[in-house]
């Protein structure tokens, strides 16, 4: 897979935006993202189960699977790379069903999540795991908007500029991890 010039995208995402995104495309994401990982997802889905309103409106938004290190003095946030996505698989389809358009994380997704990405016209981006310092530089503002008691797992509203990622799962069923590995696997 050759590296193409990155496509610039800005949140929130519409169906038209998502349709253009194909697996393997490098992207630079700007705009607002919400960070949430294991514990926050659990709480969000518990609210949905009870028919209650969520503390954030996920419609058209991207959730970044990330729990940052604390901000050192003079910075909006500390290290801020992606966490492994499969742990959010039990919850992600529920959020896509109410309008979530994108997820940023790292690693493989379940068949249920891939089916939901197709069904609800969503997209899954992978950022580089363990490049938290580099990604931190793309985050210009960070505010905790829900579940402060969860510490690093609180939901944060992030303003980002040109956060580098790659389309890892698209609405056409493409999966970068299947395509890429097949090419280089011996036996």
């Amino acid at each position, binding site marked *: *897979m*050759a*590296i193409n010039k990155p496509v610039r995208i800005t949140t929130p995402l519409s169906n038209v935006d998502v349709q253009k995104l194909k697996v*393997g495309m490098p992207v630079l994401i700007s705009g607002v993202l919400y960070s949430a990982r*294991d*514990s926050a997802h659990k709480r969000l889905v518990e609210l949905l189960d009870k028919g209650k309103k969520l503390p954030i409106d996920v419609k058209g938004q991207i959730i970044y699977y*990330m*729990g*940052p*290190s*604390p*901000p*050192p003095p003079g*910075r909006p946030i*500390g*290290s*801020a*790379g992606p*966490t*492994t996505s*499969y742990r959010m698989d039990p919850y992600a389809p529920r959020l896509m069903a109410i309008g979530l358009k994108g997820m940023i994380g*790292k*690693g*493989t997704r379940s068949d249920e999540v891939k089916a939901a990405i197709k069904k609800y016209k969503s997209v899954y981006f*992978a950022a*580089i*795991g*363990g*490049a*938290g*310092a*580099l990604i*931190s*530089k793309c985050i210009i503002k960070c505010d905790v908007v829900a579940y402060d008691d*969860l*510490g*690093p*797992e609180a939901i944060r509203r992030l303003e980002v500029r040109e956060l*580098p990622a*790659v389309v890892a799962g698209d609405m056409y069923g493409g999966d*970068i*991890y299947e*395509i*890429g*590995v*097949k*090419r*280089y*696997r*011996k*036996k």
Partner: protein
Amino acid sequence: MRKVNVAKITAAVKKICIDTNYKVDPDIIKAFKTGLRREKSPVGREILRQLICNADIARRERIPICQDCGLAVVFVEIGQDVKLVGGGLRQAIEAGVRQGYQQGYLRKSVAKDPMIRVNTGDNTPAIIHTEIVTGDKLRVTVAPKGGGSENMSRLKMMKPADGEAGVKELVRETVREAGPNPCPPIVLGVGIGGNFEMCAILAKKALLRKLGKPNQDKRLAKLEQDLLRIANDSGVGPQGAGGTVTCIGVAVESRPCHIASMPVAVNVNCHVSRHGSKII
């Protein structure tokens, strides 16, 4: 008896927690650079370039290499001629972890209860392994370990008949099934022998070895090379996006075991592979 004040242990633990989270080991950077020459996938090469860049930003701008600053795994080898004074050993280690993670702006990643999931807020308790050795020195090693790679690790009680081929198959399966999740290029620690808990500790200790340094036993050094090739033949590549550089180091540790058993543990580490030591 040589008296050692535990405050020295606290200070060492604190410093290693901070240092290992901001400064990528030069051996790892070297492996990234070698990987850049060997990686066949252009995407893989771009990822390796970004990891080199990330290490540079972390060091220059004081941002932790990774937001997962790890669960603090602490090994202490205590010479039997050392008398610890000034407080308890465990308390001294925990104080070092607490201070390091708080004052170093490191993420606190410990859940108080595995099923209730409340953050302890100071990254304690640490995982502590102590060993009494001869002499009047003390060696403290801290290896902050990320959750993503730890989750991909495995332990299998194999049959003696499985032999070396069984070890190879277990590593092959572990690397392939882990895929992108442990943040490749990975480092593998493989513990063979002992018993159920010992093989896991051996695997963890194997990760402390200097990257690329072979086992002193020629047969095990050869096994390390074979396992490295097996991992790289997986095609997983940097970040699992496909490629030829999946693993940058394999260390095997082995010891005697029961005549009925062949316990094997594979501890997977991410590309940051943090660890540091101090002799007191």
